[in-house]
């Protein structure tokens, strides 16, 4: 990486360290707000992640990292601040709204307080968790049995004549993930909607610190089960940056094929589920059928319906042979034809379109402020797709450069984005199958030790949106912290914004059109 390329993004008088495609530098805590706002607002860099590390054992105190990416160049500018002898730091939230949840999370899990943050209620951890225990500090043993306290969570209140509250969940009538939603309603119209999640918190980030490397990889696949491949891919890409095991070409193409198969399966499932939530049973049944066809292809190719155990550091473990390439190409053609017919019927149903259009409208400004990712962002016309902005695997070589967008921001727009992405994914897979280069699929790696005292970032466009993994290593070259972030973490706030002014019976449909992961949010 060339320092000139990023010179314009660096403040003066800082000591910049380069690690792969990352430039990181320490800035005084007092200046971070000014520097971050400059990068975000003036230089237009997206803020991908804010996370903290506990390096008190190395006498380095706590560090807070602010990850900014330079799109098209595939480079990252990462200013960090160091907190020695203090547990407070200036909050970015008043200036950059998308920092809100990241700072809340640091507050809850590290016990570091962002000063002037507007909302410091705990996030993810249950109200029965003691307020003075911070699970991501290194001196917190992961096996600690925690004494239950009986706290309360303060929901926002709407008052006025005829306003009442509907508490929904965390246990639902259907078999879905647990989450609590608090509706303040006037008649059937939603006035305020607040989601409280965290019911599937599994301590994944803490587990990343204790599990051996091979199990870290398995753990990634379980962060959000429906995005197993994308999560493990993001982790592997970060780990590959830290070692010299860069995957061979064939593996990069295979990764594209598997990742797009995952996208296809989930988009089919979502398109069907959106239709079934309106009661349009024909579309629902067919969405489920197409998803199943892809899942069976996955199983045939990799012995795993969710593409687990496929990614590994240095490549992939499952190849696609010449015969399978032809069969897969034909299967996909058939599925594409089916899909085309189903969508044609759906688009002709006035009752279906009436339910989808104008429901759950998200305004572009709101989406931008919250740092919307993936399908939700594309549905308001935001051009963001990691496959194009920070190309990885073989997306660059396959000439993938179109981001499918819509402008409505309603359920229909999110439905259409998925439909368009299905066609794009089909083309990508066919393209990758014809251009699949020969050669090995795995670069063997003999050591489990990585570059010492380093930082690496892996970013992938999962089917929901951007998945990012930040990995740091200690002085011995062991992984000291893994900070995963599923797009759900930022997008959950959007569901709360898209709900109000709709009627209560439309909320499940709005929620389904986002289809966010509870597990990926709760970690």
């Amino acid at each position, binding site marked *: 990486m060339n320092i000139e390329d990023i010179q314009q993004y660096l403040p003066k008088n800082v000591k910049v360290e380069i690690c792969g495609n990352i430039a990181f530098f320490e800035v005084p805590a007092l200046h971070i707000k000014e520097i971050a706002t400059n990068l975000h607002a003036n230089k237009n860099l997206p803020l991908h992640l804010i996370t903290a590390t506990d390096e008190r054992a190395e006498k380095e105190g706590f560090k807070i990292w602010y990850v900014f990416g330079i799109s098209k160049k595939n480079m990252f500018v990462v200013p960090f601040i160091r907190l020695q002898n203090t547990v407070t730091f200036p909050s970015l939230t008043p200036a950059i709204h998308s920092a809100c949840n990241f700072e809340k999370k640091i507050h809850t899990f590290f016990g570091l307080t962002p000063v002037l943050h507007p909302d410091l209620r705990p996030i993810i951890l249950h109200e029965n968790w003691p307020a003075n225990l911070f699970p991501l500090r290194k001196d917190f043993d992961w096996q600690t049995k925690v004494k239950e306290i009986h706290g309360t969570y303060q929901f926002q209140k709407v008052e006025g004549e005829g306003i009442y509250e*509907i508490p929904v969940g965390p246990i639902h009538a259907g078999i879905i993930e647990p989450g609590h939603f608090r509706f303040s309603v006037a008649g059937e119209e939603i006035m305020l909607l607040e989601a409280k999640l965290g019911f599937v918190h599994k301590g994944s980030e803490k587990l990343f610190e204790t599990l051996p490397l091979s199990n870290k990889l398995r753990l990634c696949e379980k962060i959000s089960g429906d995005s197993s491949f994308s999560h493990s891919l993001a982790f592997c890409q970060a780990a590959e940056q830290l070692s010299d095991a860069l995957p061979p070409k064939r593996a990069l193409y295979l990764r594209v094929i598997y990742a797009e198969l995952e996208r296809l399966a989930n988009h089919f499932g979502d398109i069907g589920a959106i239709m079934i939530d309106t009661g349009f*049973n024909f579309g629902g049944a067919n969405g489920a059928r197409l998803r199943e066809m892809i899942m069976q292809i996955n199983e045939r190719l990799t012995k795993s319906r969710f593409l687990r155990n496929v990614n590994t550091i240095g490549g992939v473990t499952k190849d696609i042979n010449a015969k399978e390439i032809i069969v897969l190409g034909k299967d996909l053609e058939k599925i594409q034809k089916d899909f085309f017919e189903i969508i044609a019927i759906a688009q002709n149903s006035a*009752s279906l379109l009436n339910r989808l259009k104008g429901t759950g409208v998200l305004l572009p400004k709101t989406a931008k402020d919250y740092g919307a990712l993936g399908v939700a962002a594309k549905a308001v016309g935001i051009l963001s797709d990691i496959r194009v902005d920070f190309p990885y695997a073989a997306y660059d070589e396959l000439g993938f450069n179109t981001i499918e967008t819509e402008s409505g921001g309603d359920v229909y727009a999110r439905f259409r984005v998925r439909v368009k992405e299905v066609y794009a994914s089909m083309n990508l897979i066919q393209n990758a199958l014809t251009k699949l280069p020969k050669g090995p699929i795995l670069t063997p790696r003999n050591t489990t030790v990585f570059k010492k005292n380093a930082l690496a970032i892996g970013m992938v466009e999962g089917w929901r949106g951007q998945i990012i993994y930040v990995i740091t290593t200690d002085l011995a070259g062991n992984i000291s912290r893994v900070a995963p972030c599923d797009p759900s973490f930022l997008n959950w706030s959007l569901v709360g914004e898209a709900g109000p002014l709709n009627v209560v019976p439309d*909320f499940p449909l709005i929620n389904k059109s986002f289809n966010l992961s509870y597990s990926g949010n709760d970690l």
Partner: protein
Amino acid sequence: MFIDIIIWIIQIILVPAVAPLCVGIIRKIKAKLQNRQGAGIFQPYQDLWKLFHKDEVISKDASWIFRCAPYIVFTVTIIIGASIPLFASFINNTVTGDLLIIIYTLAIGTFFLALAGIDTGSAFGGFGSSREMTVAALAEGGFIFSLLTVALISGSTNVFTISQTGLLYQSQYLLSGTLAFFGFFIVLLAETARFPFDNPATHLELTMIHEAMILEYSGKKLALMEWASANKLLIFIALASNLFFPLGIAQSAGISAVMLGMVIFMIKIVIFCLVIAVLESSIAKFRFFRLPDLLIIAFIFNVVAIILIH
């Protein structure tokens, strides 16, 4: 008189005995239309059997209304089932066979169902009841006026007499009869919690109407509630088929006429189930605030039908 009592007894048994089958048939046809195998048409009987053998959980906040409502709701459907023509129109029922009695006895069931929904104080029951009452109040106009149309045509408010005269076939009443039927059919869908008003198959608690009201029930009481709603479906199908299409109904007390009446009644049930299933497979559920439009259409159909009678 003796034959009347026999028919009465048969009807009291027939409605609860056949009603779950209607639900089973609709589900089976829906499954087939979605390329699924689906459960057998007798599954609802097995579900009821299962529920009757389960223990119940009753909220400690529940009052006597919650405990009594299933019996009231179920009894109402049995009484109405015996008070309308199913397969024979010759019996002389002047007590409960009046259409206003039928409409408002059914309303007692709806009333207690809605009360039971509110009774436990759960949020879902509350909005389920609120929605049910909104729909029921708006459907009532269409319901009364559609039956009034056929009553005016037949010159009697007794449903057996209406069914017996079958004046709808005369060409000067064809248009009013058709309009009244469509109005009634919309009411049928609303009252029996079917598409596009309600989705009987949904698991999304926030979208439910009927299911939200009975969400707190379990075990035997849930079985009674489910059974009563199946009965209600059969009652509306019977009213639609025998008031508007009385063809084939037994008009005299012969064994062969009654047997034929029963067979034809079964055929009519299957046809209505088919129509409902096709409808549920081909359209999406309407938004809640569009439902009043549909119910007002039903009302207007019937008003026009009455105007056209003379």
